[in-house]
């Protein structure tokens, strides 16, 4: 495939019908919460879009994000969109390695300087450059070099977006996110552990058609991260009615009641899981009976335990109450004794005033 072909041409070559293409545009418009009138605009923009060069850098990560994006089982138009971006460098997916691979990255950067999309997954260690290197180049150095010529950066997954698991306490590698290091480029965070495949497709489609999508304060596209899991959860009516599963196998759990008491982070988690779901819209964690871990939020790993509700104290408060009560009783008895002594002292010092004293005074 040549880089100068438009997306429309490539899709037609691959046997995608106009009808199929438009269906994808309609789905994308609704995903992005755009009015139906925008469908022709999306179609027209996608038709004319050139294959953008994409350079994918993987740092301190588990490859789960790449797995998520490449394992959407049925061949969908999203896949084709992925096939039609020019993924010029992705060291996990590409056959080449070592110097050959690095040469490919450098030549892709040079050819498309200022125009390519830089996708990053994984956090970047700042503790010691040797903690994570690719072909002898430290992660920080590679990121800074590639970011300099990028049109935009997409941080895929919670590690690249917020530091993720490598950033979890005590953060031995000094892991940081892309936004911690770069502030002079448009950055789109697509957090999640891993992120939903259709979300990354949606973000790329938006980038191809209308540029950088509207973002929240954490640089997440509002179209996908604008609503909390809680607000879109099909179990929400049970929360509102006060019907909760108390354990994973009680009557409430079997009836599909709210998982808040089992530690669900839905109320504070912003992601599209409850609407787009996973595995071609089959299900999502809460639907399968597990509380939301809050994986698309910063520091979700350190938020006080997956199975503890967000409202409850993290330390042993019962012990504090017990010790406090013992201290209170001791202090109260001591102060009470002092007060009594003062009272008795005052009573002893009290001098009675007689009528004679008053007459003398007058």
């Amino acid at each position: 495939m040549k880089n100068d072909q438009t997306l429309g041409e490539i899709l037609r070559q691959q046997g995608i019908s106009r009808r199929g293409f438009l269906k994808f545009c309609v789905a994308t418009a609704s995903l992005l919460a755009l009015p139906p009138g925008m469908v022709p605009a999306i179609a027209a923009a996608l038709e004319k879009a050139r294959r953008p060069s994409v350079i994918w850098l993987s740092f301190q990560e588990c490859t789960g994000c790449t797995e998520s994006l490449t394992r959407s089982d049925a061949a969908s138009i999203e896949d084709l969109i992925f096939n039609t971006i020019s993924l010029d460098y992705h060291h996990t997916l590409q056959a080449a390695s070592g110097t050959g691979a690095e040469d490919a990255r450098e030549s892709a950067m040079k050819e498309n300087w200022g125009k390519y999309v830089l996708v990053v997954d994984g956090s970047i260690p700042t503790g010691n450059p040797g903690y994570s290197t690719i072909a002898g180049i430290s992660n920080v150095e590679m990121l800074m070099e590639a970011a300099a010529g990028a049109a935009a950066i997409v941080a895929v997954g919670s590690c690249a977006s917020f530091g993720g698991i490598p950033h979890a306490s005590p953060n031995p590698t000094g892991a940081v996110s892309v936004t911690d290091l770069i502030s002079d480029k448009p950055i789109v965070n697509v957090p999640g552990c891993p992120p939903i495949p259709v979300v990354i497709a949606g973000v790329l489609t938006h980038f191809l058609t209308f540029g950088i999508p509207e973002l929240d304060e954490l640089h997440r596209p509002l179209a996908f991260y604008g609503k909390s899991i809680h607000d879109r959860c099909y179990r929400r009516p049970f929360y509102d009615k006060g019907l909760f599963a108390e354990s994973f196998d009680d009557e409430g759990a079997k009836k599909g009641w709210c998982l808040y008491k089992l530690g669900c982070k839905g109320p504070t988690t912003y992601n599209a899981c409850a609407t787009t779901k996973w595995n071609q819209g089959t299900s999502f964690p809460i639907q399968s009976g597990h509380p939301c871990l809050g994986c698309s939020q910063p520091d979700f790993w350190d938020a006080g335990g997956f199975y503890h509700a967000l409202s409850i104290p993290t330390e042993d408060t019962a012990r504090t109450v017990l010790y406090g009560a013992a201290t209170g009783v001791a202090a109260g008895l001591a102060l009470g004794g002092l007060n009594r002594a003062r009272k008795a002292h005052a009573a002893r010092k009290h001098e009675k005033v007689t009528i004679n004293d008053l007459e003398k005074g007058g």
Partner: protein
Amino acid sequence: MTETEFLLWVRGPAFQIATAIFVVGIIVRILEILILGRKPNLAEARGSAVAGGFRTIITRTWPDSGTFKRSGFTLIAGYVFHTGLFVTILLFAPHILVIDEVLGIGWPALPTPVVDATAVITIIALVVVLLHRIKDPVLRFLSRFQDYFVWFLTILPVITGYVAFHRIGLPPPTLIAIHILSVELLMIAFPFTKLAHAFTLFISRWYNGAIAGYRGVNS
């Protein structure tokens, strides 16, 4: 400090400090009152002090018609916000979860829309009570800084809770952290201000009733 670190600090060390101050403070205040005691009444008893004490604890819960006529507004507004606080604090699922975690006891929650509406009514009632305090010349004359301060400490958790529940303005973890922090401020001030009436009111009712009961008088 990130929003998660803030939330963890508020749920961790800050909550422990607030709990310790609250528990120690309340127990010290109550013991001080009880140990100080009252002067022995040397007159012959004309009735039971114990019966009078218990009776008054119960009867003072409901105002007599004279009081109602004189200050009906204060009574109604007072009942509304106290009932509202009771419902929002003790019958909201996440709050029951905290109590269950700390004390090991729990009970069923009210539906959240009911608690939500109650919170709004409570906020309105508290604002009305403040306006009344400012407008009424006698109340205004009697009010000190502490009266306004404890009003502020009381309404703050209701407002921050309402905002956190509806997730208005800030990231949700920050909103929850601010809400918990406002409750911790209330807990710290509780034993050392007029807020302590939540614990001492039954003691004072008891004393009033017992004194009257001893004299054979209904109170």
